[in-house]
């Protein structure tokens, strides 16, 4: 793990990159990284994020600045700008059931080719997907999902990069921290090694590539 400034970290992300961003309706989202993506005008992004948040908040800022060209998400109904950009075909949107979304990312981070889920069988979601019977039950084969960069927000990070999360701001963050080539983290608090007890570490330090320095 290396501590870097937010400017340095975002400079590593090329325009057109694929990024997965933690957070649920803007809660548990690395806001400083998103602000800097907007400032450095990183356009043409492939965004993997649970939702589109709301304008001005979380990943919503990327839609305000029209930086997204492809989106994989579970629900974008609370961001009218993302809706407009989808309906105007400015962004290609893949809507994925939330349980499938997180399992595809988990598979991507855990060396699995995909998962078998009953969710979506017999619906529009099943179109074009392989169906597999196991013990007489039908499942969809949902393939693994990864990104070049994971942008993660934690409550605590220690000097080595061990992470712990707070309440509902945990959501997709620990799963995404497993599923990208490069993992960049912002934390509410950066604390000495040992402050986070081993049992309370959720994301182990070796998963973190860059920690954004505070202050």
């Amino acid at each position, binding site marked *: 793990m290396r501590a870097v400034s937010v400017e340095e970290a975002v400079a590593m992300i090329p325009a057109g990159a694929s990024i997965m961003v933690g957070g*649920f*309706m*803007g*809660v*548990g989202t690395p806001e400083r990284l998103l602000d800097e993506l907007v400032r450095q005008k990183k356009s043409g992004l492939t965004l993997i994020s*649970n*939702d589109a*948040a*709301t304008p001005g908040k979380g990943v919503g800022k990327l839609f305000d600045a029209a930086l997204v060209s492809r989106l994989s*998400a*579970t*629900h*974008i*109904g*609370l961001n009218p700008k993302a*809706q407009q950009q*989808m*309906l105007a075909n400015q962004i290609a949107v893949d*809507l994925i*059931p*939330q*349980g*499938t979304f*997180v*399992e595809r990312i*988990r598979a991507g981070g855990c060396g699995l080719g995909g998962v078998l*889920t*009953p*969710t*979506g*069988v*017999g*619906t*529009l*979601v099943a179109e074009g997907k392989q169906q597999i019977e196991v013990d007489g039950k039908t499942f969809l084969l949902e393939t693994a999902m990864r990104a070049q960069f994971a942008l993660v927000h934690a*409550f605590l990070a220690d000097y080595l990069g061990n992470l712990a*999360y*707070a*309440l*509902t*701001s*945990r*959501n*997709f*963050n*620990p*799963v995404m921290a497993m599923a990208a080539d490069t993992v960049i983290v912002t934390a509410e608090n950066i604390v000495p090694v040992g402050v986070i007890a081993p049992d309370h570490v*959720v994301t182990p330090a070796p998963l973190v590539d860059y920690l954004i320095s505070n202050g």
Partner: protein
Amino acid sequence: MDPQIIIARRVAKELKSGDLVNLGIGIPTLVANYVPSDLKVFFQSENGLIGTGPIPEQGMAHPTLTDAGGRPISALPGASTFDSAMSFGLIRGGHVDVTVLGGLQVDAHGQLANWMIPGKMVPGMGGAMDLVSGAKRVIVAMQHAAKGKSKIVAKCNLPLTSSRPVSLVVTDMAVIGFPGGKATLQETAPGVTVAEVLAVTEAELAIPDSVPEMKL
């Protein structure tokens, strides 16, 4: 009584002590207001919390304690938090005893459409498909009709949420179950007759000899 309150009060009667319950947005959210205080029900918020409590008092909200809409909530003593893989493992894995969801249409076989209107409303399914596929009991809480048009239809013409049928539908006029896979009128709302329900229901309903009035 307000139609939404009739629905919420009737659905609340379905919950038992010890149940793990997930409430969708809209009318389902109101159900929590009508659960008797001596009933120990665990409410899950799919963004990663079991043990959701009421909206916090002014000044007591915390930015990392929110519901699935991103709004501040509180957590009750004994609450637990977890990531989204665990949250949907609970849902898909059959650990959630009851989910209560809104609906656009439910058909005569109990199939539900509640996530999109092609060309008009395409917000994404969020957690709805996983909830209907995985929760032990799926209860739909919705108005019986919208703009005079029955939401209990012969066959859904909107995209389905799941091929798995729901367990129960509670509306402002009736409770409808699906014994043997057939829509059956089980109760009527206070002051509503069987004939009145049938007059505004597109789907064919089986009518048992006795159809009691909802107890609220």
